[in-house]
């Protein structure tokens, strides 16, 4: 006697179909993200040049007590703060300018997006050559115009690589804010105008609150990319001068590929992942509280 099958509901059929279509993506993520992450976690519990000796949580303890790790984390946080603040302020400002009925605004949008479409290696080399105090283009221009010469790569290296990062990414955040601005119904502004609100008041009371979801998304993405930044330190400053731009991922890279301590570098990677997840959750929670519904 065979058991009678339960009739399938429409919802369960939809779910099965959805899972079917999700399967390739799940397999892809499992193979190229989750398995490597699992491998890194497993490696973080080992030590030695071949990462083949069990060390338990020793690498984590060492990382938490290591002044170089703490220093690189503080450098990274400083870099992220600069990038997040700059992304929001500049991205929003540019979006508001572009949102005006200006001639050639499409071309302007494209021009602002071009750096974002360029690889960090090219952008890094480009700015490295522009900013070099002795051989760079910028100082030649400054000298020709009688202005004082800059040494920013030596005097303000972290600020400089943050500015280069902003130059590259601000076009993207501008597009996000532009989409957010265009999603705000014009009626709100018209009603406020009738009530006598000036432009500044409308910005603070209508535009900014209604852009909260976009601002949240931009800040989350900027924090994640800021904490994961690598190419800027690798290409522009090589982490220097001294250890002034020793960003966390650059530090982890050096621990892995210069000192060959894969277990220790994996432990630092896991700690950084935990920090990024924590920051993201905090931002999402704080952002949801700040959301406004009119």
């Amino acid at each position, binding site marked *: 006697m065979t058991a009678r099958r339960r009739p399938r509901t429409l919802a369960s059929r939809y779910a099965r179909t959805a899972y*079917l279509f999700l*399967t*390739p993506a799940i*397999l*892809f993520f*499992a*193979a*190229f993200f989750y*398995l490597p992450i699992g491998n890194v976690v497993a490696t973080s519990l080992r030590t030695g*040049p*071949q990462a083949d000796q069990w060390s338990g949580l020793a690498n984590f303890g060492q990382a938490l007590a290591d002044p170089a790790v703490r220093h690189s984390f503080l450098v990274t946080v400083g870099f992220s703060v600069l990038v997040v603040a700059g992304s929001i302020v500049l991205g929003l400002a540019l979006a508001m300018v572009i949102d005006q009925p200006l001639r050639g605004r499409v071309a302007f949008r494209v021009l602002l997006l071009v750096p974002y479409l360029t690889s960090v290696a090219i952008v890094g080399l480009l700015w*490295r050559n522009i900013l*070099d*105090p*002795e*051989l760079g283009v910028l100082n030649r221009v400054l000298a020709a115009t009688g202005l004082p010469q800059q*040494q920013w*790569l*030596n005097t303000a*290296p972290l600020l400089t690589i943050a500015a280069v990062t902003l130059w590259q990414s601000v076009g993207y955040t501008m597009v996000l804010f532009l989409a957010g601005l265009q999603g705000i119904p014009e009626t709100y502004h018209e009603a406020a105008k009738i009530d006598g609100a000036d432009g500044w008041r409308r910005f603070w009371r209508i535009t900014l609150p209604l852009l909260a979801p976009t601002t949240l998304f931009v800040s989350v993405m900027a924090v994640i990319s800021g904490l994961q930044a690598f190419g800027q330190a*690798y*290409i*522009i*400053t*090589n*982490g*220097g*001068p*001294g*250890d*002034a*731009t020793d960003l966390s991922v650059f530090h982890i890279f*050096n621990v*892995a*590929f*210069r*000192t*060959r301590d*894969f277990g220790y570098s994996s432990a630092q990677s896991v700690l950084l992942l935990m920090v990024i997840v924590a920051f993201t959750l905090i931002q999402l929670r704080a952002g949801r509280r700040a959301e406004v519904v009119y």
Partner: protein
Amino acid sequence: MTSPLSRRDLLRLAGAAAAVPVLSACAGAPPAQTAAPGTFTVYWNAGHDYQAYRKVIAEFEQANKVKVNLQKYQWPDLRTRLLADFASGTVPDLVEEPGGWVQEFAISGNARSLQDYVDRDGAAMGFPADWRPVTVERNSYQGKVYGVQLHLTCNTLLYNKAMLRDAGLEPPTTWEEFLAAAQKLTKDGVYGVALNQDYTYVWPWLTQAGVTPYDPKTGKIMDPVADAVEALRFQADLVHKYKVAPVPVSSTDYSGPQKLFSAKRAAMILTGPWDLDPIAKTSPDIELGIAPPLKHKEQATQAAGVSMFVPAKAARPDLSWDFIKRITDLKVEQAATKETGMLMPRVSWADLPEVRSNEAIKVFADALPYAQDSSQQVRLTGQLGKWEEQLKVMYQQILIQNEPADAALAKFTQAAEGFLK
């Protein structure tokens, strides 16, 4: 009669089809280069692709019926790739390295001992008898040879003859003369000297000051400390106190001083033969002068240069050894020197007419006997990577950020004592 496929069967097939590429990717890296029949993979520095070596490669291919896959990298990229290879077990047949890796990978078990080949062929090829002792020592571990030196270089003083002549100066020979010359040459947008931000350029100064980087018997680091501080402070003073050198900029690129020299914005630089070719190509009108390394407590300089080694898991070490033998032949060294001005490790190379008759190369060749390998003792501890990381930070803090040399050196020593225990 075959039954039609049910929807469930279709779903299974579709799922299996989707999984194939992903699971294939999981199967591992592409087939090992070493396993590919007929292909011999060599990791090489991008700047060392000389015509003289291309000729050797062509002869090697013909003799062994293989195709050489010469993969060219900058050193940091080569290291990243190599360490990934070691982890995956897919290794090249031969690796060129920048100096120091042979012992590091011998200690870690990633390099193959070449002692059996040396015992068999050494006498015929003149190894180690015709190689300078420093080059054999730096490629050996526990009495066995693991690598063979390809180039042997050192730092010395390059100067713009016209600038020194116009200033009424002779090439300096001591630190005091060097400072005086740099002060006189610094004018009209030209610096007397350009220093390098790369930490490896600290060694000639420290060796001239008589500093021993690390003594494993006593555990002393940068000893005598007072002399090390003096050497570091002297360089910082050239930049910040006397302002006869521009402030270097931290970078992965070590060609900054050469570019300033080529642009006639620096009258003197301290560098090696790798900068001869770029100077000749970019500024053929410069009257290039080359003087022996400076003297302080002693006349000394830093021995550098590249070697070759065979990864432990390389499938065809016989072929790798044959490649090493061919490319280190004296005639090949002769051709490479003639082509590029590169310095070579054979003792007999220094007596070649090409070397003795070339004013520039002769100065370098004459400095090789007193060139020192500064990181040998640290390398043998297996902690060279950490040492170099700390050294880079210290050197740039002093040279670029003008931090007090004694304080920066004390921090370095404290950190080094921690990992050299």
